[in-house]
């Protein structure tokens, strides 16, 4: 009997009137856990009952403690008829099961009813006494901590990162059980809520077990999702990164142990920003993606799946100016000889050779998926990327690696590889890392697969879905390998379901990691290891290509790094992770979105799945093209936090790609965009030049807007090892030259900056126009979808998290793709405009972590859901810094380069990372404005900020704790001192009086407000005052206006925390704290 759960019902307030006659309520409470139920006395005739019950005690297994929620039902006593339910409260007691989290849950909870919403509040106290259980075969995993945060949580340090954990559980959806026909909607909703609560509890427990098996004690970047498959079941699945975390007591930390430094110094120093730095590598242009689809097939097998991988040729543009508008093509070389015939038969996959990427050897490897082929299913697998894969893996074992660092690099890679190869999936759900963790970034890897849900053999068993995901992960892994990387970071998975068709997607960023964190006893080994590490400077190292430049996995244009001049970098970098805080950037970042609609014929079953899978590569291709164009238009060269969502509806597919664009100074400056007619005289050259002018103007305006002034002169002063004569001219050329000349120049200078858009039909004109539609945010606003806003980090205290939902009804039945695109684009743009307007009082302000989710809930509906946080910042400071930056840049650069190797030799026992961070510390004061400010953010200062935080707390005599919410992992001006546990809540709301509740908008508005209220109440009851890493994972809305009905499901999650104002504890240390060392000292002192 390893646990005793105790609950006490104290009082209620604001109860609804249940007895019309007396205008009062005779309320009592049922407290249920597992199969045990207790009741309080009836508190007659009161809307504010005081029960003050005894302690109800439940003696239960800890397994149940993890799975089950405590269920509190408030009822109205009725002598003559059945008691009426007022509402329920589900309390997840998981936070009470870790020693470090909350010790008691106590507070006012909204009483929630799925039909009526919140109906009053109830005050409850819950405690748990755990007995130690030494049973080795236990099924529970109490004590494993869960974090939604995708970086190492503040006030912890990671001693070991174990890697990927995943789990999936399936159950029959109560909504589809036969009994649903005879029970009330309320009963059905409650059954669903309870089931999901149970399933997530079970899921978390199982994942916890896996973590314990691996020797870890925590899951970071925990991502849990629901798939409402309908008839075939309800799936709850989760992925995360298993870690061993040590709690940093605020007094002990950093100075003593050098090995702790990599984490503690920067991380404790604020945990805010430095912890998310990690070096990442750019994903060169290569975005690789795969699509799997069942295809109508030759044989009558249950399930057919056909795979084809597409390496989206984002870069083909840069390569070959002529091939510009190769819209219809997916240009890969079909490689597996076995399958080539099938390939050709695939509709739509006309293959176009991509010059460089294709490598004739390497055609033999078996398709990955064949591993799992079982007799029952026939698989045709067409893998376009095998060649790349082989090429890349060949490189690992001794292929010629580039420069001086080559041998070292190879050695390192081998070491790391062995560490990682033991793992089935070297995936990490983290998006930011301790400094030094991430060595290089290869690029975005993604895979999609279309499945038919009605073909699942045993719908109630998880095997089939497990196999699906396994397959996709294998694919991701192989893509990463093709990029010369052994790991995938910033990894996430998602689904989109429409009727019986389900698209499974996974994406991440291929990367090379520092092996030190991977091994047991890592710290000791780390000591020796670091000698082999490449001396790549922290602010550009992650950009250096991980793959072999002779066997590039995709056509890319390499140059020497504009920072260190020693390694090659790609010209464009796409990643799914956050911008490493030590990365050197110029100017500000901005949100870049690509939006796409594709009509599709209505179809059933396999035909439908085939149609979808045929469309997918085109969509992905076009999304990338749009992204690339928009990136160039903003004069930027890298994307972070790339997230591509493809959502399927009955008659259309929606694609939305969001990312944060930034100018990395280590990468070459992007060239402009040139417009060219297909044939001379095709379109009036006037027309073309006017478009060209608009584009050039837009680029110029954007440069100004985002303050992109790369420190060119300074760099040249340093003296690059490889002189690059064309470098300077490149920046300006597209502005200065007329379009006519350009087309010629293009051929001669060619690849350098050529990014040519060819106008050969009206579609192309439309496309270009749509490029220019994106309005820049109004003055005073910036936006991004990542944790850090590149170029801004001097946040002040204003924080406003919001959720917005918009549903558009397409009334026009015969819309074209173009028309749809326009509508969809306008929808997104208008949403952004609305946000800017609503939040105008916060100027200067930045919308961070803008997370768009699209869905096609019904045939003619498009739904967009956005959650983001608006944060105010100090404008003055930013300007000062940018102003001073270019001046010092040059000299510092030199210093930096010198210092690095020196440090390395002199102090070989200290970790390389430490030096790295020191150096960046030096740089900070002057040349790395973004980092300075991020440091400041963490460092104890900024009165303005903290003042307002405190004042908000002390306001008034209200009994309600103010709970801040943010999708980010930090709150500006504060330090998280305790993580109280994960918040993971699922609610259903239904109404049969839609009009009376203010129509669909009124209904959803109050529901979202209620969800926020319940999250805040749970956090406050845990003793917390904020939710970080908050996200709304699911918002499924269904309506039937004719019946005056609507239903909505919402799933939210986040980490409940206690945070304190930085100035509360750390006194006056607010003076300019420029160096990182300074920062960590103050931190340690407290």
């Amino acid at each position, binding site marked *: 009997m390893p646990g005793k759960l105790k609950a006490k019902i104290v009082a209620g307030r604001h109860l609804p009137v249940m007895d019309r006659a007396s205008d009062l309520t005779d309320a009592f409470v049922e407290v249920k856990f597992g199969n045990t139920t207790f009741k309080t006395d009836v508190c007659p005739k009161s809307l504010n009952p005081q029960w003050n019950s005894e302690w109800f005690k439940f003696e239960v297994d800890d397994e149940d403690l993890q799975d089950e929620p405590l269920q509190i039902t408030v009822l109205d006593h009725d002598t003559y008829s059945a008691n009426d339910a007022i509402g329920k409260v589900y309390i997840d007691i998981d936070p009470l099961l870790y020693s470090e989290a909350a010790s008691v849950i106590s507070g006012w909870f909204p009483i929630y009813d799925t039909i009526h919403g919140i109906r009053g509040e109830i005050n409850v106290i819950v405690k748990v006494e755990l007995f130690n259980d030494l049973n080795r075969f236990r099924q529970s995993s109490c004590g494993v901590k869960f974090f939604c945060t995708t970086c190492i949580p503040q006030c912890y340090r990671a001693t070991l990162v174990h890697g990927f954990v995943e789990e999936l559980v399936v159950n029959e959806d109560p909504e589809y059980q036969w009994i649903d026909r005879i029970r009330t909607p309320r009963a059905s909703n409650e059954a669903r809520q309870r089931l999901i609560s149970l399933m997530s509890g079970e899921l978390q427990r199982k994942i916890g077990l896996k973590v314990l098996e691996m020797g870890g004690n925590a899951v970071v970047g925990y991502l849990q999702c629901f798939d409402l498959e309908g008839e075939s079941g309800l799936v709850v699945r989760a992925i995360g990164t298993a870690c061993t975390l040590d709690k940093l007591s605020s007094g002990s930390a950093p100075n003593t142990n050098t090995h702790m430094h990599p984490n503690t110094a920067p991380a404790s120093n604020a945990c805010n920003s430095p912890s998310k730095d990690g070096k990442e590598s750019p994903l060169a242009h290569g975005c690789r993606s795969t699509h799997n689809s069942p295809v109508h097939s030759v044989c009558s097998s249950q399930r057919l799946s056909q795979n084809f991988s597409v390496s989206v040729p984002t870069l083909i543009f840069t390569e070959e100016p002529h091939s510009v508008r190769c819209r219809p093509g997916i240009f890969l070389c079909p490689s597996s000889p076995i399958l080539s015939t099938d390939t050709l038969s695939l509709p739509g996959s006309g293959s176009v050779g991509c010059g460089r990427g294709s490598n004739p050897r390497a055609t033999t490897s078996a398709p990955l998926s064949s591993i799992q082929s079982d007799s029952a299913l026939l698989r045709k697998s067409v893998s376009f990327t095998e060649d790349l894969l082989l090429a890349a893996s060949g490189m690992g074992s001794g292929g010629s690696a580039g420069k001086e660092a080559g041998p070292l690099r190879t050695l390192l890679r081998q070491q790391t590889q062995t560490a990682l190869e033991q793992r089935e999936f070297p995936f990490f759900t983290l998006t930011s890392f301790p400094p030094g963790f991430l060595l290089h970034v290869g690029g975005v890897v993604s895979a999609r697969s279309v499945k038919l849900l009605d073909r699942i053999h045993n719908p109630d068993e998880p095997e089939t879905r497990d196999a699906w995901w396994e397959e996709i992960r294998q694919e991701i892994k192989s893509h990463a390998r093709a990029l010369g990387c052994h790991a995938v970071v910033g990894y996430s998975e998602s689904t989109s379901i429409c009727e019986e068709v389900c698209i499974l997607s996974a994406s991440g960023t291929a990367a090379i990691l520092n092996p030190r964190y991977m091994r047991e006893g890592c710290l000791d080994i780390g000591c020796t290891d670091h000698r082999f590490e490449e001396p790549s400077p922290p602010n550009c190292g992650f950009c250096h290509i991980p793959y072999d430049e002779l066997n590039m996995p995709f056509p890319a244009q390499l140059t020497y790094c504009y920072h260190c001049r020693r390694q090659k970098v790609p010209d464009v970098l796409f990643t799914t992770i956050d911008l490493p805080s030590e990365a050197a950037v110029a100017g500000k970042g901005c949100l870049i979105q690509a939006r796409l609609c594709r009509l599709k014929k209505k179809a059933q079953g396999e035909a439908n799945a085939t149609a979808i899978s045929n469309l997918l590569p085109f969509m992905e291709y076009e999304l990338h093209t749009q992204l690339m164009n928009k990136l160039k238009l903003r004069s930027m060269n890298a994307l972070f936090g790339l997230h591509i969502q493809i959502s399927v509806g009955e008659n259309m597919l929606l694609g939305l790609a969001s990312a944060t664009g930034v100018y990395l100074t280590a990468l070459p400056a992007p060239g402009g965009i040139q417009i060219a007619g297909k044939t001379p005289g095709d379109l009036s050259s006037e027309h073309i030049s006017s478009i060209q002018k608009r584009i050039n103007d837009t680029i110029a305006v954007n440069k100004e807007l985002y303050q992109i002034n790369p420190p060119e002169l300074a760099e040249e002063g340093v003296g690059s090892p490889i002189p690059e004569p064309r470098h300077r001219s490149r920046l300006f050329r597209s502005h200065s030259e007329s379009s006519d000349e350009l087309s010629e120049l293009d051929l001669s200078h060619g690849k350098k900056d050529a990014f040519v858009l060819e106008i050969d039909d009206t579609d192309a004109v439309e496309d270009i126009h749509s490029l220019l539609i994106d309005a820049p945010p*109004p003055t005073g606003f910036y936006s991004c979808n990542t944790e850090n806003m590149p170029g801004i980090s001097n946040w002040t205290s204003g924080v406003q998290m*919001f*959720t917005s939902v*918009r549903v558009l009804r397409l009334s026009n039945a015969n819309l074209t793709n173009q028309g749809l695109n326009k509508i969809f684009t306008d929808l997104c743009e208008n949403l952004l405009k*609305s946000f800017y307007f609503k939040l105008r009082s916060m100027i200067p302000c930045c919308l961070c972590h803008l997370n768009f989710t699209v869905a096609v809930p019904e045939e003619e509906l498009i739904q967009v859901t956005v959650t983001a946080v608006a944060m105010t910042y100090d404008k003055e400071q930013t300007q000062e810094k940018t102003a001073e930056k270019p001046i010092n840049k040059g000299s510092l650069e030199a210093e930096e380069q010198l210092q690095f190797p020196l440090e390395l030799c002199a102090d070989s026992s200290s970790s390389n990372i430490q030096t790295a961070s020191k150096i960046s510390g030096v740089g900070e004061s002057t040349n790395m404005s973004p980092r300075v400010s991020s440091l400041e953010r963490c460092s104890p200062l900024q009165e303005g900020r903290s003042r307002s935080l405190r004042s908000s707390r002390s*306001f008034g005599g209200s009994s309600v704790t103010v709970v801040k919410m943010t999708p980010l992992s930090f709150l500006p001006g504060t330090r998280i001192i305790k993580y109280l546990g994960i918040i993971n809540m699922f609610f259903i709301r239904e109404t049969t009086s839609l009009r009376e509740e203010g129509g669909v908008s009124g209904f*959803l508005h109050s529901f979202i407000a209620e969800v926020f209220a319940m999250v*805040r109440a749970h956090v406050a009851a845990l003793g917390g005052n904020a939710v970080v890493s908050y996200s709304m994972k699911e918002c499924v809305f269904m309506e039937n206006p004719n019946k005056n009905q609507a239903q909505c499901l919402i799933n939210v999650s986040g980490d409940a925390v206690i945070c304190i104002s930085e100035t509360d504890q750390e006194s006056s240390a607010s003076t300019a704290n420029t160096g990182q060392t300074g920062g960590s000292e103050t931190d340690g002192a407290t």
Partner: protein
Amino acid sequence: MSVELDVFVGNTTIMDEEVYQLWLDGYTVNDAVKVRMEGGVMDECEASKDVLLSDTMDQYRTFQMCERLLHSPAKLANQLLFQIPPHRQIMLIERYYAFDDTFVREVLGKKLSKGTKKDLDDISAKTSVTLKSCRRQFDNFKRVFKVVEELKGPLVENIRQHFLLSDKLARDYAAIVFFANNRFETGKRKLQYLSFQDFAFCAGQLISNWTVGAVDNMVEDMDVDLDKEFLQELKELKILITDKDLLDQHKSLVCTALRGKTKVFIEMEGSFKNLSRGLINIAANISLPLRLYPCRSDRWSAADMKLYLTHYTNSAHILDTFKHQVVWDRYMGVVKSCIFKMYHD
């Protein structure tokens, strides 16, 4: 193509004071959008009409959801649904309970009944306050009236604590409650020129001097009901006009004091009897202290009036046979200040 659903919900509830006022004033969403456009808000943030419409709808919905809470403002502070910073809560409440002087002037002294509520559309037309706003204001009066009706303790304080209103607003509500309870008529044509604030002042005077609460502060309705004993005693002041000797004596004392101090002395002397009768009759038959109209004369200045009343009051103290000095002071103190207040253009 149409927007089917459009919501925006902030963790901290976003409210624009300007939109709130438009909502309170009873503007429809479309009218509010027009007003906002004219106000130039579009120039901020490059907003379009659609953006404005969407924002206005969001806010209107929020206000509608909040309205239930505003009916019992104490709930606003400990409800969980909306996270509203305390200073905003105060603003919301204060503005919700604010009223138009022109509107309140129309219903002042009327019974807060369904009957009156039915007449609101006339009042709305007359005052050009929207019907919606009239209803809100009327319901506010009624709600406050109902709540404080059954409470013990000082009226103003009760209103302030129950409805979390500012002192000023609480006093105004006290006046409204007082008038409604005593049904003093304020609609007479002769009184048209008086503003609500004039009446509110008088009510304040009456509450603090003539009610039960002025003597005993622990009874129910202490500030709403007039002190019955006092009213009884007031009847005895009649002696000042019924007793001829007293009347003459009083007149000569007043005239002696006034002589040479005012230009309108002759008139004062001539109308002394009428004036005195008027003042004393009010005392004997308190229904409306505002029958004091006879005192009003085109030719008397406010200073004249003040002078006259001061001497009129003081002289009565000198009368040997007049025994009701305490009642006299309690009566005349209020009457004097009320008349001063009303004696304006």
